[in-house]
C-alpha cells in the first residue's frame, strides 16, 4: 500500500549503525479510485432520465358550416365516449336512447375493453366520437386520444358535448358521489 516517506530527505550519509531506509515503491493502489469511478458512473446513469419528450400528432377537422357537408356515420358503427371529471368516462353505442338506457359509466382502465369489443363487433368500421365535458382535464383528453392509438382506431373525432349529455354526466356523477 502507498505510504508517505516521512524519513528525512536530503542525501546526507547516515552513521554506521543506522539502517538504510528501504526504498518504498511509488505505486499507488488504485482499486479504491476505480471503485469510486464506477460508483459515480452508476450513480449518473441511474439518476439520468432519458427524458426526450415525444409528440402526439392531432389533425383537426375543418369546421363545416353546412350540415349536409358533414361526414355522416352509420349509427351502429359509432361509439361515443364522454369524459367527466375525476377520470370518469361514460359511453354509449350508437345513438343515445331517449331514456338513456344505453348510457353506461366506465373508467380509463375498462374503456379499452369497451373500445376493443366494439371494434371487433363492427369489424374496423368503428368511429369513435369523443366528447369531453368542461370539467375534464387535459390529461384525460390525451389519455383517450392515446387509447385511440393503442387500439388502432383510425376514425375518431372530438366533438362538443350536447346539453342532454352534459346533464346525464352530471346526474350520473352526482349519483356516484352520494354513494
Amino acid at each position, binding site marked *: 500500500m502507498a505510504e508517505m516517506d516521512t524519513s528525512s530527505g536530503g542525501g546526507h550519509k547516515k552513521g554506521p549503525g543506522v539502517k538504510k531506509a528501504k526504498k518504498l515503491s511509488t505505486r499507488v493502489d488504485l482499486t479504491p479510485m476505480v471503485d469510486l469511478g464506477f460508483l459515480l458512473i452508476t450513480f449518473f*446513469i441511474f439518476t439520468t432520465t432519458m427524458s426526450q*419528450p*415525444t*409528440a402526439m400528432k392531432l389533425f383537426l377537422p375543418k369546421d363545416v358550416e353546412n350540415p349536409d357537408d358533414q361526414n355522416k356515420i352509420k349509427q351502429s358503427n359509432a361509439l361515443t365516449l364522454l369524459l367527466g371529471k375525476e377520470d370518469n368516462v361514460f359511453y354509449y353505442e350508437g345513438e343515445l336512447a331517449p331514456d338513456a338506457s344505453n348510457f353506461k359509466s366506465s373508467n380509463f382502465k375498462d374503456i379499452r375493453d369497451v373500445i376493443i369489443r366494439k371494434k371487433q363487433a363492427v369489424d374496423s368500421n368503428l368511429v369513435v366520437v369523443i366528447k369531453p365535458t368542461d370539467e375534464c382535464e387535459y390529461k384525460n*383528453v390525451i389519455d383517450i*386520444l392515446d387509447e385511440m392509438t393503442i387500439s*388502432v382506431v383510425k376514425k375518431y373525432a372530438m366533438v362538443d358535448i350536447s346539453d342532454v349529455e352534459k346533464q346525464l354526466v352530471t346526474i350520473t356523477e352526482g349519483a356516484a358521489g352520494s354513494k
Partner: protein
Amino acid sequence: MSRPKIARKSTSIDMTAMCDVAFLLLSFFILTTKFKPSEAVTVATPNSVAAKVAPEKDFIMISLTSDGKAFISVGDSQGDKEKKKVMIEEINTRETLGLTDAEIAALVRAPFVGAPIAQLKQVAAIPTEKMTGASMPGIPIADTSNNQMVDWIRAAVVAYQGEKLNVVLKGDNVAKYPAFKNIIAALKKNEQFKFQMVTNPEAVPQGTYLWNANMAGKSQEQL
C-alpha cells in the same frame, strides 16, 4: 532432479488502466449529458405511447399551465428568435401598440410571451430573469370574443409564411379542457389543422392492437 521453481507472482493487478477507463467513461457521460433547460413555465406533461420525438427547433410552442394560463414561446435557435421578432412586430403594427425597437428586442429576449397584448409595453420593462410563469397573467384565452391566441397564431402564420409552421402544444396534466378547446379554436380560426402535443413517452400496454402491430414490426405511422 529438481523441478524448476515457479516464481510466485503477486496477485495484485495494476489498476491504473481500469481507473483510466472508469474516469474516461465518467467524464464522457457527464459531458454528453444535456441538462434539461430550465423552464420559465413549469408544465407537467401527460404520458402517451407516441413514438415521435418532439421537435427541438423551428416551432412555436403554446404552453398551458395547471392554472389555465396560456403562454407562447418559440424554439431556441437563432432562426426562431427572428421569427418571434416578426411576430411581435406584426402584433405591434396590427394593434398599434407603439413599441419601440428596444422594447421589441426585450420581448424577443424574454423566454415567452404571457400577457395580454395591451400590456406588452409594461411587460417589456420586466427583466428576463424575473419573468416566471407564476408572475405573468398569461395570454387571455378564456373569453371566446377576446381570444388573443387567435392574434398570436395569426402573427405566427405571417412570420412563417412560405415555411412549415409547427405548432406544439404543451399542456399540463390538470389543465382544464375548456382552455385546451379555446386553443384548438384559435388554431382552427387560422386554418392550422395540424398540431403536436408534447407528452412523456410511455410503454405500449401488452396485448393491445398496437402492441401486436409493433411486435409484427409495424410502426405507428404505418397503421
